[in-house]
């Protein structure tokens, strides 16, 4: 939304008479136009001397605004899009796949929540190794916990070692599909996501190996340093991060997997971090926990668009 003064070069209709008239009503930018009552504005324009020019100016600004919104889609188009693009990726872990009815869904934001050492990073590594066989994966790591050895281990378990060289080649091919980047503050993450957006826009034209999975481990360590101070910027950054991730997921057919932590709640139960404002942003939330001293993990659904919440399953990594 630009200032009216800057738009004059592109749209000569918006000359100084129009701008002075708008300024007298407190309108300095296209955005301010949306806040004001347009009928009143038109009525004032009528009474002014150069009413024709003013009406042209107003009409021009309205057409600029019209260009800015997303196109309308009807139900049939959405269904087409869902059937063609929005597949389900299995995570490779049987318990979770059964629970979710196939796996994590493309176009949606899935969140894994759990206390420390409950297997969240392992689930992400497993999913990444599974998806990387056919697609590209981007892993954003905030805690240096991306472990290539684990990925090699998961991949090694799933193929028969015909020869060491063939295994090496397979590992190289699949692991070159996974890119890992370390981000340590939220502004760096926004930079990375915007670079990713321009990359994806060029990618949508090509047909070969495309990026389909984005993992952020973990988003709460990026947001906790800015959340909760006296200004509201922290919460604004959090919600705009959430919306950007959802937009990337939907428009470019990515599955997005993010990791969140837990904090203590009332009564000693742990609840997911980042508070109530974050609660509505991910499409589905899964709660993981681990039985102490054994290899058994539990997962339960906190929120999912097509499954009942509260269903639980066990799995082993």
């Amino acid at each position, binding site marked *: 939304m630009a200032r009216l003064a800057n738009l004059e070069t592109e749209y000569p209709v918006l000359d100084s008479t129009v701008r002075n008239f708008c300024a007298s009503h407190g309108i300095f930018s296209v955005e301010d136009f949306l806040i004001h009552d347009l009928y009143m504005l038109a009525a004032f324009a009528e009474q002014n001397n150069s009413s024709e020019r003013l009406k042209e100016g107003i009409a021009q600004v309205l057409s600029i605004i019209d260009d800015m919104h997303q196109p309308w889609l009807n139900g049939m188009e959405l269904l087409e899009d869902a059937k063609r693009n929005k597949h389900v990726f299995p995570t490779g872990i049987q318990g979770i796949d059964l629970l979710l009815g196939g796996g994590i869904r493309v176009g949606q934001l899935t969140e894994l929540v759990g206390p420390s050492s409950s297997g969240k990073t392992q689930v992400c590594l497993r999913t990444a190794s599974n998806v990387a066989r056919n697609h590209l994966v981007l892993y954003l790591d905030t805690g240096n916990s991306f472990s290539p050895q684990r990925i090699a281990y998961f991949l090694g378990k799933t193929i028969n070692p015909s020869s060491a060289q063939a295994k090496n080649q397979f590992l190289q091919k699949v692991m070159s599909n996974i890119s890992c980047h370390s981000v340590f503050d939220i502004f760096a993450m926004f930079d990375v996501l915007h670079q990713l957006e321009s990359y994806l826009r060029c990618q949508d034209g090509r047909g070969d190996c495309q990026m389909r999975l984005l993992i952020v481990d973990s988003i709460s*360590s990026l947001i906790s340093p800015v959340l909760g101070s006296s200004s509201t910027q922290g919460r604004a950054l959090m919600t705009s991060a959430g919306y950007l991730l959802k937009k990337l997921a939907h428009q470019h057919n990515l599955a997005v997997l993010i990791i969140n932590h837990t904090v203590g709640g009332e009564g000693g139960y742990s609840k997911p971090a980042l508070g109530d404002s974050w609660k509505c942003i991910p499409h589905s939330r899964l709660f993981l926990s681990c039985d102490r001293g054994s290899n058994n993990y539990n997962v339960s659904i906190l929120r999912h668009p097509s499954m009942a919440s509260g269903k639980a399953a066990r799995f082993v990594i």
Partner: protein
Amino acid sequence: MEIWRLPISASQRGKLISAGYTSLSSLSSISSSDLARELNVSESEAMNILKVASHSRGSETSNASCSIVEGAQSAWDMLHDEESLMHITTSSADLDNILGGGIHCKEVTEIGGVPGIGKTQLGIQIAVNVQIPNDFGGLGGNSIYIDTEGSFMVERAFQIAEACIEDMSEYNRFLRKDFQECKIKMQPQDILENIFYFRICSYTEQIALINYLDKFLSEHKDVKVIVVDSVTFHFRQDFDDMALRTRVLSGMALKLMNLAKRFSLAVVLLNQVTTKHTEASFQLALALGDSWSHTCTNRIVLYWNGNERYAYIDKSPSLRSA
């Protein structure tokens, strides 16, 4: 509103928004003197804002050729890098075993235990062990020791250094009969010289020091380990504002992670324990709560069992619990 994304101060942001600049494209066609006039700020501030805005816009339009984003590495490359990373031995064979060879570089390891179990001794041992030259299987680097409790005893460090050198010469005698005394040029004094010691007395000093370490490490590239003795000491008592504590701690942890990754060093944090009341039994857990427990890469808990010390790996991305 794209202006939210820029890392500029809140007052500058407020002025930009009230003057009508809410997106980055609106800042593209204006010069810094006009901007300074409209916002009532100095010209250098306006130039700063424009520079930040054009930097984030520039990264939108550049297309990275081989990787998806700049600076990302593929997992295959990282696997090979990891194989060449060395570990810092802790001088205890069992502990090294469960750690997979020792403390890993490029990771933040947290070690916690009850008072008196030997955390400070372990910290000093690691600070000495990192200086073992490459020929003997060590890293040959310097170390930084940040002391918050005042429990670093120089005499004990001297003893440990002497013992380490004795160890090295014994090992030397076993294996390489020909390369003898010329390799052991290290004296205990040299080892102590290579430990950079900082003593801090309040949490603000702690935060300031971590911020300063960035510059320090670019000047002293040999540092390979940072040991923080009791990272939690100043944060446990008299902190009124819990939210501030969480913010400060997570910010500090992210900076330490950044240092570990950029300079390829290991960060070892020593922590105290509290009791956690879960399901009618008391269990020892590391201090500072759940939010802190997510900020490190590995966690090791030391505890007594009868008369012996045991170690237990609580959290690790690549090692199993032991």
